[in-house]
């Protein structure tokens, strides 16, 4: 089964053809935004990190920015730096151009001020845009897709309707040879042992359990005991009996396949099938991590509604809450409330979602894309010094 996409020089499949402007530090973000806004079809990452970072945060920064540049939804990249930041803009551009696409770098201190940098940047991005317009879609196999899964603003409808339906669609994609990313580690607390049983090897199970333990402890350090506090009174009133039930309701959105691999935040999977990526449950950091890791498309279930979207990847919003679908019509892509009204089966809704994934992959725009939702935030472990 196919979709229509862009075959990149490194063999990956793109669903979009963005010209991407990446500020390598917060100080160059303004100039980067002006450059992107002045060229139709260019997008900018609203990155404000890159100064005073320490330890693993420097690794996460580079991995995420390079990951966005190498994501196959991107045709070409301009990295805009200042000149004194710890991540050299040229280093980012070189890592991206190593995959075969054009990537340039300009630094404000070298070029000589904002105005000159913007003028030079516009010229480069315009050229990149003209090249991008000459690129065309061709039939590509669904096995080339990496689908991110996310839930945010969950309510009673998520565990009963939207998550099982998305899970059915994920199983369909995996049976076509595709890849699905499950993430948001704090949400695994309660179901981690069950997920561990589905791991291909004890080593994979161990890595996942270690990640869960890290987050559980990090939350306790911050004064929150996730295991003790869930299910909360609202959950219990709504029918959720145990922590396991709540957590399973969440992870069910990634389907029932065996767990093939565990990857760190923003890292690219080496295997196909169901992958677990260690990310926070923070909606934007999670979304950013999956796209940096190569997800070209994301399905996002919501109960109460959320507008989030990625600068370079389509995010399909799915709700089983009819009220939310009607009230936030401009943000919601799919209504699966028929499941909760007993009018549509989970498998049938899953099939509709699977077809929607194909159509969005082939170019159909999501509501978040139409609204130019540019949400981006890199996960950090430390403070900026």
């Amino acid at each position, binding site marked *: 089964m196919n979709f229509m996409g862009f075959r990149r020089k490194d063999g990956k499949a793109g669903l979009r053809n963005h010209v991407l402007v990446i500020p390598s530090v917060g100080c160059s973000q303004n100039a980067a935004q002006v450059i992107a806004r002045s060229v139709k079809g260019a997008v900018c990452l609203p990155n404000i990190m890159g100064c005073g970072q320490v330890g693993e945060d420097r690794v996460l920064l580079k991995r995420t920015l390079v990951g966005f540049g190498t994501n196959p939804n991107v045709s070409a990249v301009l990295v805009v730096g200042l000149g004194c930041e710890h991540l050299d803009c040229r280093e980012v551009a070189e890592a991206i151009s190593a995959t075969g696409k054009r990537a340039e770098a300009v630094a404000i201190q070298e070029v000589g001020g904002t105005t000159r940098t913007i003028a030079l940047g516009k010229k480069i991005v315009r050229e990149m845009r003209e090249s991008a317009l000459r690129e065309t879609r061709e039939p590509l196999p669904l096995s080339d897709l990496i689908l991110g899964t996310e839930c945010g603003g969950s309510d009673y409808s998520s565990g009963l309707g939207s998550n*099982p339906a998305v899970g059915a669609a994920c199983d369909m994609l995996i049976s076509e040879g595709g890849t699905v990313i499950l993430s948001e580690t704090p949400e695994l607390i309660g179901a981690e042992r069950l997920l561990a049983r589905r791991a291909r090897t004890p080593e994979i199970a161990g890595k996942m359990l270690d990640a869960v333990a890290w987050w559980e402890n990090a939350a306790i350090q911050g004064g929150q005991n996730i295991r003790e506090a869930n299910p909360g009174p609202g959950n219990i009133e709504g*029918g959720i009996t*145990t922590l396991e039930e709540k957590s399973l309701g969440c992870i069910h959105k990634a389907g029932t396949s065996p767990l093939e691999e565990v990857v760190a935040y923003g890292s690219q999977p080496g295997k196909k099938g169901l992958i677990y990526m260690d990310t926070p449950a923070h909606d934007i950091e999670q979304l950013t991590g999956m796209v940096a890791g190569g997800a070209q498309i994301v399905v996002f279930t919501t109960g109460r509604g959320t507008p989030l979207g990625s600068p370079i990847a389509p995010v399909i919003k799915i709700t089983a809450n009819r009220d939310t679908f009607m009230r936030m019509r401009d943000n919601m892509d799919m209504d699966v409330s028929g499941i909760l009204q007993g009018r549509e089966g989970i498998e049938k809704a899953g099939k509709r979602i699977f077809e929607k994934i194909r159509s969005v992959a082939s170019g159909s725009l999501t509501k978040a894309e139409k609204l130019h939702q540019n949400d981006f935030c890199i996960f950090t472990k430390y403070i900026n010094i």
Partner: protein
Amino acid sequence: MTRAKAIVIHPKDNVATALEPIPAGSEIAVRIEGRAKKVKLASDIPAGHKLALCDLEEGDVVIKYGEPIGRSTGRIGRGEHVHVHNVTSPNK
């Protein structure tokens, strides 16, 4: 498809979840892998809450999403309400 009052998420599940409040004494049909299973409710089941699809003994595992979500703390009859009063975490 006639409107269902409760759904079963996975064929291995031994509970169904009510989609609306269902009074005790109602006879409902839930679909499991295309086949209808009839259950008579022994308790009132609020919307979003679970009912047992078969008799459960004390210590039996409650299965939803195809996985153990809890352990019964006492005998639960088919069609009865399954929740915090008769189920505890499976790992306790």
